[in-house]
C-alpha cells in the first residue's frame, strides 16, 4: 500500500533528527512548567470559584503540552507550498493516487514519530515531576484515544486547507501564523474555553479549533463524555469534503512556476 510506505518512510526521515528533537523537548517542558506555575499561582486559595482545581489545571497543561506536537505543530501547509513553488506538485498530482491522502499519509508519519519521540517523553517527564491524571473509568481510555485521533484528523484538514490554497496564493506564511494563533487561542491551549469571558467562551466551543486541543483534553480529564466529539467530527467531515473538492479545483487550475 503506497500510503503506508509513505507513512513509514516519513517516520524514518524524522528519526534522523531525534537528538535535536530531544533538546527541543526541553524547551517544550519549560513552557509547560511556566503555564503550570501560572495556573497554580492563579488558583491558589481561589479554587472554590473555579470548575478546575489547581491539580486539574496542572494535568490539563501537561497533557496539552504533549498533545501540541500531534495536533498543532504540523508542517506549515503540510509542505504543499514548497512543491507549488518548485513545480513538484505537477508530477505528484499526476500520480494515480489521491493527492489529499498522499499528503495526509506523509504527515501522519511525522505525527506518529512525534507521538513516540515528543509527546510520550514529555508526558513521562511531567508524570515524574508534577504527576499525571489516570482516567478512573476504563472506557475513558478509549474515548481519550478517539478524541486524539479526531483532533489529528481535524488539524490535518485545517493545515491542508492552508497548504492547498498555495495553488492560488503562492505564499502561506501569514495564513499559517494566523491558523496557529487561532489554534492556540480558541483551541484552549492556555485557557480552557469555558473560562473565557462572556459569549466568547460559548461560541468558541462551536468552532473547529476547539476540537484540536480543548475537547481531547477535557475528555482525558473526564470532564466531558464522548458527546463532546460531535462538533469536532462534524467539522472534520465537512472540511475533508471541502478539501477534496478544492483539490479537484487545484488540479484543474494548476499553474506551474518554473516547473
Amino acid at each position, binding site marked *: 500500500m503506497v500510503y503506508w510506505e509513505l507513512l513509514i518512510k516519513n517516520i524514518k526521515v524524522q528519526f534522523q533528527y531525534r537528538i535535536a528533537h530531544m533538546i527541543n523537548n526541553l524547551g517544550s517542558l519549560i513552557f509547560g512548567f511556566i503555564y503550570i*506555575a*501560572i495556573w497554580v499561582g492563579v488558583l491558589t486559595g481561589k479554587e472554590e470559584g473555579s470548575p478546575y482545581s489547581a491539580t486539574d489545571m496542572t494535568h490539563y497543561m501537561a497533557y496539552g503540552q504533549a498533545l501540541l506536537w500531534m495536533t498543532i505543530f504540523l508542517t506549515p501547509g503540510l509542505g504543499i507550498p514548497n512543491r507549488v513553488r518548485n513545480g513538484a506538485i505537477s508530477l505528484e498530482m499526476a500520480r494515480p493516487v489521491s493527492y489529499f491522502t498522499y499528503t495526509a499519509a506523509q504527515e501522519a508519519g511525522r505525527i506518529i514519530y512525534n507521538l513516540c519521540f515528543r509527546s510520550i517523553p514529555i508526558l513521562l517527564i511531567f508524570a515524574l515531576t508534577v504527576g499525571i491524571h489516570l482516567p478512573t473509568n476504563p472506557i475513558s481510555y478509549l474515548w481519550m484515544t478517539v478524541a486524539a485521533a479526531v483532533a489529528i484528523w481535524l488539524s490535518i484538514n485545517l493545515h491542508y486547507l492552508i497548504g492547498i490554497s498555495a495553488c492560488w496564493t503562492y505564499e502561506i506564511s501569514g495564513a499559517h*501564523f494566523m491558523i496557529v494563533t487561532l489554534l492556540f*487561542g480558541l483551541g484552549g491551549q492556555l485557557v480552557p474555553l469555558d*473560562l473565557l469571558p462572556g459569549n466568547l467562551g460559548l461560541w468558541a466551543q462551536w468552532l473547529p479549533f476547539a476540537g484540536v486541543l480543548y475537547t481531547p483534553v477535557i475528555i482525558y480529564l473526564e470532564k466531558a463524555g464522548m458527546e463532546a466529539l460531535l462538533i469536532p467530527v462534524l467539522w472534520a467531515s465537512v472540511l475533508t469534503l471541502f478539501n477534496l473538492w478544492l483539490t479537484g479545483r487545484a488540479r484543474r487550475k494548476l499553474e506551474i512556476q518554473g516547473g
Partner: protein
Amino acid sequence: MKLFFTLWGASLRSRMQYKGNFLFSSFTYGLIMAVDFLMLAAILLRFDDVMGWTIYEVGYLYGIASASMSLYRLLAPEIHEFERYMVEGEFDSLLIRPVPPLTLLLTRNLELSRIGGVVQGIAILVLSLHGLAATTHWLPALLYLPVAFISGLIISFALGLITATLAFWTQRIKDFQAFTLYAPNNAASYPMSIYPGWLKWILFTVLPVAFIAYVPALYLLDKGGTWHNLWVSPAVAGVFLWISLRFWRFGIRYYHSTGS
C-alpha cells in the same frame, strides 16, 4: 561606527522596497502577540491576580519582555538565523572581509516586521501604566522604561549570540532556541515568584531573564525590592553581554568550514 551606520542604512533602504509586505507582516505579528496577552487577561479578569500580582503589574513585565524580544528579532535577525551560515557554508565569505563578522551580521538585515511586536509591547505598557496610575508610583515605572528596554535587548541578544555560537559545533541551532530563547523570554513575562525553586535558579543565573523586567519591577511596583534593583539589571546585562562576546570569539577560533 560610521561603517556600522552606513551598512545599516543600506539594509534599511533595501527592506523598505516592500512596504505593503512590511505593513501586513508587522500587523500580523503584533496581532498574534496581542492574542497571547488577551488569554492571560482572560485568566486574570476571572481570578483577579497571580500570587498578588494584578493584570496591570503582570502587564508591565509582559510588555517589557515582549518589546525586548521583538527589538532583538528586529535588530539581529542574522544572529537568530545563524545556522544558515553554517549549514550552507556562507560563513567563509564573512571571514574574508576586512570587517569583523559580528559587525557584518548585525548590519546585514533588519527584520522590520518585528516592529509590530515592539508596538504591541508598548501598547500593553501604556495600558498597564494607565491601570497602575491610581495605585502606585507609575511615573518612576515609566521613566525606567528606556533602561529596561536596553537591558532587555542586551540580555535577549546575548542569549541569541550564545545560542548562535553553539552552531560552530552543532551546525543546527533551531532546536536549542526553544530552550535558550523562547521559553526563557516567555518566563520573563511573569513574576518569578510563581516558579518552582529550580526554575527560578535557572532564570536568575544560566538564562538570566529575571533581570529583564522582574528585578527592577520589584522595586518600581513596590513588591519588596530596594533601589539597588534598578542598577543591578543593566549591570547583569553588561556582564552577560561581555560573556557572550567572549564565547563568540572562542567559537570562531574553533570554526571549521564545512568545505562546501
